[in-house]
């Protein structure tokens, strides 16, 4: 299984490359922390603080739109 255990709750920084986003909502639905929402057909970071850098959104975005970095790294 792909989920890496979120061992010690990391803080993440997630961004969306809007130009390439096709609005499939995969990132939104598979984010365990509901960080992302759909807005006018594009994924948007709605609750950045919740992000744990688990990377699940990034791994599954088919369009290379999402980058996740661990805060402080």
């Amino acid at each position, binding site marked *: 299984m792909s989920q890496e255990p979120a061992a010690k709750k990391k803080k993440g920084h997630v961004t969306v490359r809007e*130009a390439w986003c096709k609005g*499939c909502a995969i990132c939104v639905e598979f984010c365990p922390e509901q960080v992302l929402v759909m807005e006018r057909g594009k994924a948007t970071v709605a609750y950045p603080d919740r992000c744990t850098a688990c990377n699940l959104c990034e791994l599954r*975005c*088919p*369009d*290379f739109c999402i*980058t996740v970095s661990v805060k402080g790294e």
Partner: protein
Amino acid sequence: MFNYDQYLRLDKFPLIWCSGCGDGIVLKSLLRAVHKLGLQKDQICMVSGIGCSSRLPGYVDFNTLHTTHGRALTFATGIKMARPELTVLVITGDGDATAIGGNHYIHAARRNIDLTVLLFNNHIYGMTGGQVSPTTAKGKKASTAPYGSFENTFNISGLAQAAGASFVARSGVYNPVQLENYIVKAIQKKGFSLVEIMSPCPTAYGRRNREGTPVDMIAWQKENSVPVAKAGQLTPEELEGKLITGILVDIERSECRAEYQKLIDRLAQS
């Protein structure tokens, strides 16, 4: 954060694939696998046939070859036999590999030639708008099966095994990390390696069969995947409609180009 860009032809973006198409997810797993193995871009040759999935090579900064429908494995065989030092990856769809390309598929497996095949199984002909494929389940609809398909399907992986493949694994886009690991193993294997990848086509398959959104189709994989070890304990009825994932074959068998090299070497000595 993994840097995909180093392997991409960014000027060709955005990808032509539909919103929610699984193929982009596979592409990412593939690039991570290539990186993990430390392969040089120059040393990779990626060969595809024709189909949505077969458009993938256009996006990666390798030596890329988009061939004719069903024939990728023949071009790849030529490359591998001519230049065994190249890592040859083959990108193909269920139709490309097992409908029109079925013969090359079983023969490449028989030869156990050192190619790594990523077979994007979306159970449909995506590129041409949703015709029935040898993997479209009985009863499922397609533009050329408006009443539901009446034909039996292939077990793609089983076929590769029977033909002689030395590595066969099955995974899906729900599980991009597993996918990445299988691709790594497949490339490492010296011989014909197949990774059968369930990559949903929401447009040409999902819509017609009311499979819901791309998210629904990926979630389906989550609900219905059964690891191969566990599958052994279930009855055929319990396995009905399930997706058996895992490494299905991993054996040692003589490899085609290596055998040919032995012949060359033998003749050189005599």
